[in-house]
């Protein structure tokens, strides 16, 4: 099993009673979330997929909408 990157006893701390915490999802100083989304869009476009975010709200509203012609 690979080394856990998340919480667990910090052996390296020499038993000082601290826990080791993951560093989490971090972007470099030259990157922002728009760059992440741009990479995603470029890859999707390369296979002919519309990169526009389809959203969650549309689905939620569609699920809530009463059926017609019942």
């Amino acid at each position, binding site marked *: 099993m690979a*080394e856990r990157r998340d919480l667990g006893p910090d052996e390296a701390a020499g038993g000082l009673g601290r826990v080791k*915490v993951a560093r*989490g999802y*971090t972007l*470099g100083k030259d990157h922002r*979330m728009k760059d992440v989304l741009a990479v995603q869009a470029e890859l*999707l476009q390369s296979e002919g997929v519309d990169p526009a975010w389809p*959203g*969650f709200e549309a689905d939620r509203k569609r699920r809530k909408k009463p059926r017609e012609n019942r």
Partner: protein
Amino acid sequence: MKPLQHKVHGASALRSGRESVSVTCGGMSAESQRRAPSRRPLLEGELQRAQAVVDLAWQDLPARHRALLEVIGAAQRRAVDRPLGQAVVDLLRSAGHRLPERDQERELDAALGVWVPELRVVLVDAGHEKHVGLADSSYEAALAWVAWHEWGHALSLDRATDGDTQAGERLLVLAPEGMAAIIRGGGYRSRELTHELVAETYALLMARRRRGQKGRPPWLNVEIWDLMKRLVDWDE
């Protein structure tokens, strides 16, 4: 979890970077204020909206992944509007856990999301400065991305072998160039690269699935695709 500071501004001020008026509600130490990255706190309604998006991202996961994440301890999710190091320390303290070193807390302050196994929760920093400038739809996509990334970690972590971890540098060369650049830019340690690649690919596959696409994307190397099938049980 209540944000320690509120600012009065328009609904899209955070992402447009508009000036705002600060109203400090107390509770944040001088040291915390020095450590906090530049950010413009969300309005309460915006934070609720962010929480709703993270919940919808959870609902969007394949049902068997949700079931596994329930067992693993990553089903709880919370959008917060404060640096994650501070948020995690406060949650650990209130739950009676030991605390991390200060430098780890500071490192985590820069993160957009994190899975905390001891607390069985995924935290997403909805007010992170890296979100500034996003339109509403992109902001929603970004929040979902961060949450999916963290669930990718949770699904894969215990399945990765030492060999997988050691192959990080080599696997990154096989990854799409833009994705590899984003991961390299994060300054991760060598032994973290495979985990980050898997988590980032998981978010990408979820974003693709959201658009009705299944199977191996033509831009994804076969070895990484096989890794995803093995580590996160991706079979769509």
